[in-house]
C-alpha cells in the first residue's frame, strides 16, 4: 500500500516538474466599470478557480499549457464564458465585464442535484440568498436572514420550510443545513447551531423547498439549505470588520429591568492568500451580546479556516473547518408578561458553556470531461455543559464519509451516484452513552427527454441503527419534471418520498430543566413523508419575475414532543399530518437596476389528521416584502414581514403553570431598515452600514414566553486591505 501512495506522489510531482506553465490574470467589472469583489473565476472542466480581490483583480498562476475556457460568475450578474484561451508558457490577460441579471435569472444552483444547473431549470422550488445581505443588514447569525425568505418561518432558532417543523426544543431538524454540501446538525441533539456558521465567509445560500431525501437522506424531509463558502482570493487580502449596536428601551416601562445601555459588538479579521498551489483563508472573530433580556448575555470566540490545494488542474483537495467556544446565560421562558424580559427566578444565574467544531475535507478528481469523483469526509465534535443544579453535560462526535461520482453521458444526460456512511457517538448525563450508525446509497439521473423537457429521477436507500432501537430501512424515490414553455416561462412538478430517523436526543433524553421533565422513548420510529409540488416561473412583464407553487406534503408517524399524564415531555410518533399550501414569490429590478422590489406570500394549511386540529407553531399566512434602492455609492432598503397569529402552541406549558402568560401571542409585524455607503463604488475598499431592526419596536413572540428582540440599532464598518 505504501508503494502505491509513493507512486501517486511521484506521478503528481513528476507531472508538475516536467509540465510547462502559463497564467491567466485580469479584472472583473460591472457595466459602470466598477470592480467586482468576490467574483468566481473558474477554468472550465478543471478544479482551478479563484475569487477577485477588492479591485476586481484575479490571477491564476501555474496553468499547464493547453486550451481552456474561463468562466466568471457572481450572484446578481449573468455568467460569463470566455472564448478559447491558449496557454503556451505565456501570461494571458483578460478583462471581463459582467452584466446584471434580472432577479434570480441565469443563476446556478448546485444543491438541487449535486451538480451545477440553471436555477429555473430544476424541478422543485428554490431560492438563492446573496451574501451581500449579511454585510448590509448587519445580521449576526445566518438564520436572521431566513426570516425574510418566502416560505421559511423561524420559531426562535428552529427552522421550518413550508411548515415542516413546529418547535421541538432543539431536538432534531427537518431541514438539512449544510456547509459546502456537508451537513452540520449536532451529533447528540440533531439541531442546527447557527452561530457556528461564519457570516463573513458566505458566498451564497441555496435553499431547496420540499423533501430532498432522495439525495440527502434523513433530515432533508422538509428541505435543504446549502451554505456555499467564499472562493479564496489569490491576491493577499485582509478584511477587518467592526460592528456595534445598542438595544432601545422596551416600549413599556414595566419591562425595563436595568438602567444600563444594553449593547452588542463584533470584531472579525480574515485573511486569504496563495502559497504556491495552496490557497488559504483564515478568520477570527469575537462576539459579545449583553442582550435586551436579563440572563441572556453571551460571549463567543470563533475561527474559520479554509484551504484549497490543486495537485493539478484535475485534482484538488479542499479543507474547511469552523469552530467556536461560547459562554451563554440561559433564558428559557419569561417570568410572566409583566416581567417579559426577565427569566423565572429559578433560571437566574444559569448558563451553558459550549465548544463546537466541524471539519470537512473534499478530495476531487476529474478523470476526463465526463467523469469526476469526490471523496468527502467530515467530523463534528461538540461539547457542552450547563451550570444548572443538575450540571448536565454532553460530549458527542459525528463522523461522516461520502463518495460521489458524477458521470456526464452527454450535455443532456447527467448521472450522480454515491454512498454515504455516518457514525454518531454520545456520552452525556442526559442522553446516556449512545451511538448510531447509518448507511445510504443514492443515484440520480437528470436528462433532457425532449428539447424543452428536463426529467430528474432519483432513488436512495438508507439503513440506520440507533443504539438498541430496531433497524430502520428506508427507500426514497423522487421524480421531477421541468418544461420550458419559452425563454420566459418554465413549469415544474416533483414528487418524492422523505424520511427522518429520530435524533439521539428525541429517543433518549432524560432530564429536568426549569421544572420541565423530559423522558426517553426507546420505542420511537422514523417518520416519513410524501411530498408533491408543482409550480410555474414566468416573466409576465420583463423584468418582473413571478414564481407560483402549490404543494401537498403528507407526513406519517410524525415525531412531535408531547406531554404525558404526569406533565412530562416525551417524544412520540404522534400523528399523521397533512401540510398543504401555495406560495407566490415575485421580484424585479427597475430604473437601471437601482430599485429592487421583492414580495412573497405563503399560505399554509397544516393539519394533524388524527386529532383534527392545526399543527403547532405554523402560521397560516406569511408575507415578506422588501425595497432596495441604490444611487451611486449610497444604498438603502426596507424589509417587512408579517406572520399571522399561530393557531396552536404547547398549551400544556400554560396549563401546568410552567410559563405564566405563555398563551399570550399576537400576529407578527416587523419592519427593518438600513442605509449605508458602498465605498467600492468610488474605488475605496470599504463599506459602512447603519441598520435598524424592529423599527416599530413591535412586541411579539415566536416561542411562548420569549419576547423577540426589541428595536436595536447597529453600525458596521468593513475594510479590505
Amino acid at each position: 500500500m505504501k508503494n502505491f501512495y509513493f507512486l501517486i506522489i511521484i506521478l503528481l510531482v513528476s507531472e508538475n516538474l516536467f509540465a510547462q506553465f502559463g497564467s491567466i490574470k485580469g479584472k472583473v467589472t460591472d457595466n459602470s466599470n466598477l470592480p467586482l469583489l468576490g467574483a468566481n473565476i473558474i477554468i472550465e472542466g478543471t478544479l482551478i478557480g479563484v475569487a477577485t480581490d477588492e479591485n476586481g483583480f484575479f490571477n491564476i498562476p501555474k496553468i499547464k499549457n493547453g486550451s481552456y475556457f474561463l468562466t466568471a460568475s457572481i450572484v446578481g450578474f449573468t455568467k460569463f464564458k470566455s472564448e478559447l484561451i491558449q496557454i503556451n508558457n505565456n501570461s494571458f490577460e483578460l478583462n471581463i465585464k459582467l452584466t446584471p441579471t434580472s432577479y434570480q435569472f441565469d443563476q446556478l444552483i448546485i444543491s438541487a442535484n449535486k451538480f451545477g444547473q440553471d436555477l429555473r431549470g430544476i424541478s422543485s422550488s428554490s431560492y438563492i440568498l446573496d451574501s451581500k445581505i449579511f454585510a448590509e443588514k448587519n445580521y449576526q447569525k445566518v438564520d436572521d436572514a431566513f426570516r425574510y425568505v418566502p416560505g421559511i418561518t423561524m420559531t426562535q432558532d428552529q427552522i421550518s420550510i413550508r411548515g415542516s417543523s413546529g418547535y421541538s426544543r432543539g431536538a432534531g431538524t427537518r431541514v438539512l443545513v449544510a456547509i459546502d454540501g456537508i451537513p452540520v446538525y449536532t451529533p447528540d441533539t440533531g439541531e442546527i447551531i447557527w452561530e457556528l456558521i461564519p457570516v463573513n465567509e458566505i458566498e451564497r445560500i441555496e435553499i431547496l423547498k420540499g423533501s430532498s431525501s432522495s439525495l440527502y437522506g434523513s433530515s432533508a424531509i422538509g428541505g435543504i439549505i446549502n451554505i456555499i463558502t467564499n472562493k479564496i482570493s489569490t491576491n493577499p487580502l485582509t478584511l477587518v470588520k467592526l460592528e456595534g449596536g445598542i438595544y432601545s428601551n422596551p416600549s413599556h416601562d414595566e419591562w425595563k429591568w436595568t438602567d444600563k445601555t444594553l449593547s452588542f459588538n463584533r470584531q472579525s479579521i480574515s485573511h486569504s492568500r496563495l502559497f504556491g498551489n495552496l490557497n488559504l483563508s483564515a478568520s477570527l472573530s469575537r462576539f459579545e451580546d449583553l442582550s435586551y433580556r436579563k440572563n441572556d448575555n453571551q460571549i463567543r470566540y470563533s475561527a474559520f479556516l479554509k484551504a484549497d490545494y490543486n495537485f493539478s488542474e484535475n485534482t484538488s483537495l479542499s479543507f474547511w473547518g469552523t469552530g467556536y467556544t461560547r459562554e451563554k446565560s440561559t433564558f428559557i421562558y419569561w417570568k410572566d408578561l409583566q416581567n417579559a424580559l426577565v427569566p423565572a427566578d429559578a433560571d437566574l444565574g444559569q448558563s451553558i458553556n459550549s465548544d463546537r467544531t466541524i471539519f470537512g475535507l473534499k478530495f476531487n478528481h476529474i478523470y476526463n470531461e465526463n467523469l469526476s469523483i469526490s471523496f468527502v469526509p467530515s467530523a463534528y465534535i461538540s461539547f457542552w455543559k450547563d451550570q444548572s443544579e443538575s450540571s448536565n453535560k454532553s460530549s458527542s462526535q459525528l463522523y461522516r464519509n461520502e463518495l460521489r461520482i458524477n458521470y456526464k453521458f452527454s450535455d443532456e444526460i447527467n448521472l450522480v451516484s454515491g454512498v454515504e456512511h455516518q457514525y454518531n457517538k454520545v456520552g452525556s448525563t442526559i442522553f446516556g452513552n449512545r451511538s448510531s450508525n447509518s448507511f445510504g446509497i443514492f443515484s440520480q439521473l437528470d436528462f433532457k427527454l425532449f428539447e424543452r423537457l428536463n426529467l430528474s429521477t432519483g432513488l436512495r436507500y438508507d439503513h440506520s441503527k440507533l443504539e438498541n432501537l430496531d433497524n430502520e430501512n428506508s427507500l426514497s424515490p423522487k421524480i421531477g419534471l421541468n418544461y420550458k414553455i419559452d425563454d420566459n416561462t418554465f413549469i415544474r412538478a416533483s414528487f418524492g418520498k422523505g424520511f427522518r430517523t429520530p435524533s439521539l436526543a428525541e429517543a433518549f433524553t432524560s432530564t429536568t430543566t426549569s421544572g420541565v421533565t423530559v423522558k426517553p422513548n426507546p420505542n420511537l420510529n422514523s417518520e416519513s413523508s410524501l411530498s408533491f409540488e408543482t409550480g410555474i416561473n414566468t416573466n409576465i412583464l420583463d423584468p418582473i419575475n413571478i414564481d407560483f407553487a402549490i404543494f401537498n406534503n403528507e407526513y406519517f408517524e410524525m415525531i412531535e414532543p408531547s406531554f404525558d399524564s404526569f406533565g412530562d415531555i416525551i417524544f412520540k410518533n404522534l400523528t399523521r399530518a397533512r401540510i398543504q399550501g401555495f406560495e407566490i414569490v415575485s421580484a424585479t429590478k427597475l430604473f437601471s437596476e437601482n430599485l429592487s422590489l421583492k414580495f412573497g406570500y405563503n399560505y399554509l394549511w397544516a393539519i394533524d389528521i388524527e386529532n383534527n386540529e392545526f399543527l403547532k407553531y405554523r402560521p397560516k399566512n406569511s408575507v415578506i416584502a422588501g425595497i432596495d434602492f441604490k444611487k451611486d455609492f449610497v444604498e438603502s432598503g426596507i424589509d417587512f414581514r408579517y406572520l399571522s397569529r399561530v393557531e396552536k402552541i404547547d398549551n400544556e406549558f400554560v396549563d401546568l403553570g410552567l410559563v405564566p402568560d405563555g398563551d399570550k401571542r399576537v400576529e407578527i409585524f416587523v419592519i427593518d431598515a438600513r442605509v449605508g455607503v458602498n465605498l467600492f463604488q468610488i474605488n475605496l475598499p470599504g463599506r459602512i452600514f447603519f441598520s435598524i431592526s424592529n423599527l416599530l419596536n413591535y412586541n411579539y413572540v415566536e416561542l411562548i414566553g420569549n419576547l423577540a428582540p426589541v428595536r436595536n440599532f447597529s453600525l458596521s464598518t468593513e475594510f479590505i486591505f
Partner: protein
Amino acid sequence: MRALRILPFLFLLLSCDKGLSPENADQKAGFGGTVTFIGNWNSAAKQTYVVAFKDPLLSISDFSIFNLKFVSDSIPFGSNNFNYSTNSENAVLSNIEFGDYSYVAVAQTIRDTLSLDRNDWIVAGIYTSNDDSAQPGILNIPQGTFIENVNILCDFNNPPPQPPSEIQNLLKSFFESKKSDE
C-alpha cells in the same frame, strides 16, 4: 424625493398597535383561607397539603397533573391552624386562573416524596358549599380577584368522602360482580 412619499406610510405603521404589552397579562387571581384541624394527627402522615383541582374528581383519571392546579406549601405535622394562599411563593404548585374549581381539599400522604398516584393520598378535609357541608363545593374565582376565607375544616375523627381510587374501583367491581352472581 420619492423616498419622502413613504413617510406617511411609515407614520401610519408607527401609530399601529405595539403588539404584546404588560396590560395583556392576566391579573393575578387566587384564593386563600385557614385550615383548622380537629382530633389527633395520624402518625403515619408524612406530608399534608391544601390542593385544588379544576374539574370534579369523578374517576381516577381526573387525578392528573393537568387537573391539579394548586398544591400549597407543606403543612407542619400537628398543626391546629394553617393559613394558606395560592399566591404564596412557597407553594409547590400554583397555577390558579379565574374560573371554577371543583375540588379544594386538604390531602395527606404517607410517602416522603410527592406522588401523583391517587392511592398514595387520603383526603382529610374538603372545601364545602354552604348548602351541603358533606359534599365538595365549587369555588368560583372572578377574573383578577383574590377570594379570602376559603376555610377548610379537617376533623380527623370524621373524615370526608374520599374521591375515586383503585381500591374503591376494585371494591365496586367486586360488589357488582357479586350482585350479578346472585
